[in-house]
């Protein structure tokens, strides 16, 4: 998947903070609680129907509903897991999975990095220690990654190798 140049090594891989998936899981749990509410009303709605058919039918659709929730949770996790930034000693690779069969990969050579800004906004980001890194390049493009854990370490790593790369070029 990832082809490294000669002498290039991966320094770190950054994925979004677990809080991103936690929100999805909360929604999943709420959706999982819907069937018991529906099932509690079902006896009143289906009182006049043949219970020998209604009961297995209800259980069948309940099983299928849970399978659907599972596959959508799996899809959202895949989307979360495959979104990443890979920092090597030569470049920053921004990989963004946008659903199925849609993937965007951008690269920023470290020598083109002009400015690195970090932003921590709000109570949740402050206490869970994640935020946004913005990288300004020489071509006036801005790369942004949100929900970055270990923000300061990531920034320091990028700046350390950016500085070293730019010193090598000048020498």
């Amino acid at each position: 998947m990832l082809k490294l140049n000669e002498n290039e090594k991966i320094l770190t891989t950054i994925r979004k903070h677990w809080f991103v998936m936690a929100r999805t899981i909360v929604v999943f749990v709420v959706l999982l609680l819907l069937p018991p509410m529906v099932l509690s009303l079902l006896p009143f709605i289906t009182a006049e129907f043949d219970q020998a058919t209604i009961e297995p039918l209800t259980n069948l659709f309940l099983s299928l509903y849970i399978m659907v929730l599972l596959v959508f949770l799996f899809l959202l996790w895949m989307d979360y897991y495959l979104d990443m930034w890979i920092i090597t000693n030569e470049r920053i690779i921004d990989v963004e999975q946008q659903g199925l069969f849609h993937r965007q990969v951008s690269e920023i050579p470290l020598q083109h990095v002009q400015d690195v800004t970090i932003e921590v906004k709000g109570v949740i980001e402050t206490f869970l220690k994640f935020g946004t890194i913005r990288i300004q390049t020489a071509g006036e493009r801005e790369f942004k990654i949100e929900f970055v854990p270990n923000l300061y370490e990531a920034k320091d790593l990028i700046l350390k190798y950016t500085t070293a790369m730019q010193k090598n070029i000048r020498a």
Partner: protein
Amino acid sequence: MFIPILVFFIVFTVLYVLFAAAIIYHLRQYTLSEHPASKVVISVFLFLAALFWLFSLTFLFKIPY
């Protein structure tokens, strides 16, 4: 009643398998080799999906023919 439900179940299963296979393909294709988390998640998903599919199959055959 049973036949339409059976047809629906077969169509659902085919679409589900295709969708799940697409997700697994992406994970196997694009995961970095040193990260084993995807293998664990794939295994858990396949186990749970198979389990609930077997439950649904059991309930399907309890519907009066």
